[in-house]
């Protein structure tokens, strides 16, 4: 049986009524050893902040595993990081800023393409986006793994590719999301 898939609609400007969780940005709980803030600004084609976007992240744990039945290498019980959720959700503030507290994931085996470098999958929802846009955050201290990553390798222009790699910013990592314009973030067709 094949059923017709339900179409997407914009998240609209008022999602904070229902989608903001107090612990949304906590991919790992406060106090987790090695936790780092990953975040930045969401801006539009005029360079103005997008104050009504929702950014969500999804990632493997530091061993590169997912607590999910479709990960054939699922972590053995109790081996993971306490409180690790893998998922982060943060609405942008008035200046377009978002951030999640997380741990760097491990690399992932790609059955068709060697190893994927550590990364976060990112969804961006906003008024004006009729469906989500998807991108990835890669890590600046993983130059070798990034050089071998199949998705990064599929982007020919090194300047465009570099926009998927976060930059060190104080104690955290900065990843700006430019929805449109000269420095537009590469978005991915999933």
């Amino acid at each position: 049986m094949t059923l017709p898939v339900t179409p997407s609609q914009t998240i609209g400007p008022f999602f904070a009524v229902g989608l903001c969780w107090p612990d949304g940005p906590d991919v790992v709980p406060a106090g987790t050893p090695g936790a780092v803030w990953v975040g930045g600004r969401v801006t539009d084609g005029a360079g103005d902040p997008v104050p009504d976007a929702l950014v969500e992240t999804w990632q493997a744990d530091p061993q590169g595993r997912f607590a999910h039945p479709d990960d054939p290498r699922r972590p053995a019980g109790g081996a993971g990081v306490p409180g690790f959720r893998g998922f982060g959700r943060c609405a942008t503030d008035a200046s377009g800023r978002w951030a999640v507290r997380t741990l760097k994931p491990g690399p992932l085996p790609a059955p068709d393409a060697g190893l994927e470098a550590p990364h976060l999958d990112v969804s961006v929802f906003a008024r004006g986006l009729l469906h989500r846009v998807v991108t990835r955050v890669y890590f600046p201290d993983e130059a070798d793994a990034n050089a071998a990553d199949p998705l990064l390798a599929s982007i020919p222009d090194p300047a465009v590719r570099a926009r998927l790699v976060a930059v060190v910013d104080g104690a955290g990592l900065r990843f700006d999301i430019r929805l449109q314009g000269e420095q537009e973030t590469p978005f991915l067709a999933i």
Partner: protein
Amino acid sequence: MAELPGYVREGPGTDPPLDFPAYRATRLRVPRRPLVPLPQRLSEVTGPLLGEGRVGELDHDLTAQHAGEPLGERIVVAGRVLDGDGRPVPHTLVEVWQANAGGRYRHDGDRHPAPLDPNFSGAGRCLTDAEGRWRFVTVKPGAYPWQNHDNAWRPAHIHFSLFGRAFAQRLITQMYFPGDPLFGFDPILGSVPEAARQRLVACLDLDVTVPGWGLGYRWDIVLRGREATPLDNQDEDP
């Protein structure tokens, strides 16, 4: 490691295009460069399985979250979450938010001069059961004006957020009510290819209706289905 089956990418007939100028807010927000193809690998075929701890006992009943009952027409909205292969999606988080009966959201950014209702927050959540069923009790949201164009009004709708079981299935959408005369004037519903628009419209259902209390609407939500496994299509190119 064996190759993992991914999720079927929708063809052009399902989702709205990002670039849809009649919806004015798209203009400075939609990406202009072509999307980079992302093969679905481990990060995309897994996803957050958010459980019981996130859903309180009254979260599915938007009429029972305050001391008194909200004003407006009480309704029940129910349905199933399925995937494109017709399989139920069990134990998955469903989140909803909506305007009150007067068409006003409990949000600082909502400037519509209709009254707030002290007995209505407009947010709900629940988990689907083992058969993918969900159910909310609420009041019918009102239509409301917005700034998209002169005399623009949104048809009544409830926002839905779904996770499914994989990042590739994540969906945020809106449910509409049958026969709304504003359908033909709304660029957000109108952004959906015409043949797929009806999929966003609930139907009146007397089996969901609570006799003597409130009308019921049924709406099934279909997330992407699984691609055939590599074994099924080993004669084809991927």
